[in-house]
C-alpha cells in the first residue's frame, strides 16, 4: 500500500476538527480536501472516521434523550417574559 504515513498521522490529528467544524478550529478548504482524499484511499483512516461518527451519533442520541423537563423550561420562559415586560404586576 502506497499511502504515505504522514497523511495517516495528519488525518488522525484532523478528523475530529473536520467532523466538528467548530469555528475555533476549522480546517482550511485545502486541509479538508486533502483529508477527504486520504479517507477515500486509506481504509484504516476511513474506518477510524466511521468509528468516530458512530460514537458521535450515539452521544447525540444521548443528548436528545436527556433533555430538560419542558415544564421547567416553560417556568423559566415565564420568568423571562415577566422580566421583559417589566411586570410581575
Amino acid at each position, binding site marked *: 500500500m502506497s499511502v504515505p504515513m504522514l497523511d495517516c498521522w495528519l488525518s488522525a490529528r484532523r478528523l475530529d476538527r473536520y467532523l466538528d467544524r467548530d*469555528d*475555533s478550529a476549522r480546517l482550511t478548504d485545502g486541509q479538508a480536501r486533502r483529508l477527504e482524499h486520504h479517507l477515500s484511499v486509506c481504509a484504516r483512516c476511513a474506518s477510524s472516521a466511521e468509528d468516530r461518527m458512530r460514537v458521535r451519533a*450515539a*452521544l447525540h442520541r444521548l*443528548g436528545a434523550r436527556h433533555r430538560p423537563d419542558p415544564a*421547567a423550561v416553560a417556568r423559566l420562559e415565564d*420568568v423571562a417574559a415577566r422580566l*421583559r415586560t*417589566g411586570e410581575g404586576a
Partner: protein
Amino acid sequence: MSVDQSTRHAVGPGPDPAAGDPDASTGRAELFGTYVEPEIEAMLRVAHRLTGSWNDAEDVVQDSLVRAYRAIDRFDGRHPRAWLFTIVRNTHLNSLRRTRPVPAEDEWLERRTPAFGADRAPSAEEVYADRHFDADVEAALAALDPRFRRVVLLVDLDHLTYAEAAEVLGVPVGTVMSRLSRARSRLREQLAHRRPGPDPTTDPKGKRR
C-alpha cells in the same frame, strides 16, 4: 433551598433597574427577547452540567436570567451564548459560595430515564442495535474522569462550541480541545470491541476487560 430570595424577589414586583426610562426599558426588553430568551433551554442544560441537579439548575438559570436582564445593555452583541454561559457559570459559583462548600459532582445521568425529548422513530433493528451500543457508550462515558466527561457532555451532547464550553468551564479553548480529544479517544478505546453487527449477542473476544 439554594435560592437567593433577594434575587427571586426581583422577578416579581420589585425595583425595575430600567424603570423611569421608558426608552432604555424598551431597548433592554428587545435585546433580552432577542439574545436571552431563545437560549433558555441551553442555559438550563449548561446549569445542569455544572450543578448535577435539575432543580438546582433551574434556580441557577432563574438567577442568571435576572442578571442577564440587568446586564444586557452592557452586552456588545457578540457571542450571546458564550456571554450567557459565563453568567450561568458565575451564578453557579456564587450559589456554591452561598450554600454548600463541596460542589455536587456531576451525576450527569443521575436518572437513566428515557427522558422527555425522545424525538425520532427509527426502525426496530436500528433501535435494537443502537440501544445496545448506546448503553455501552453511556457506560464508557461514566467511566471517564469527570474533567474529561464534562467536556464531552457539553460539546457532544449539548452542542456547545469549543469556545462556549471554554466559558462554561473557565478554561482556555485549547484545553477544551485537548480534553475533548483525549476523552473521545478514550471512549473509542473502550468501545473498540463493540462494533454494531447483525447479532449483538455475539461478544467478540473483548479488548480491555
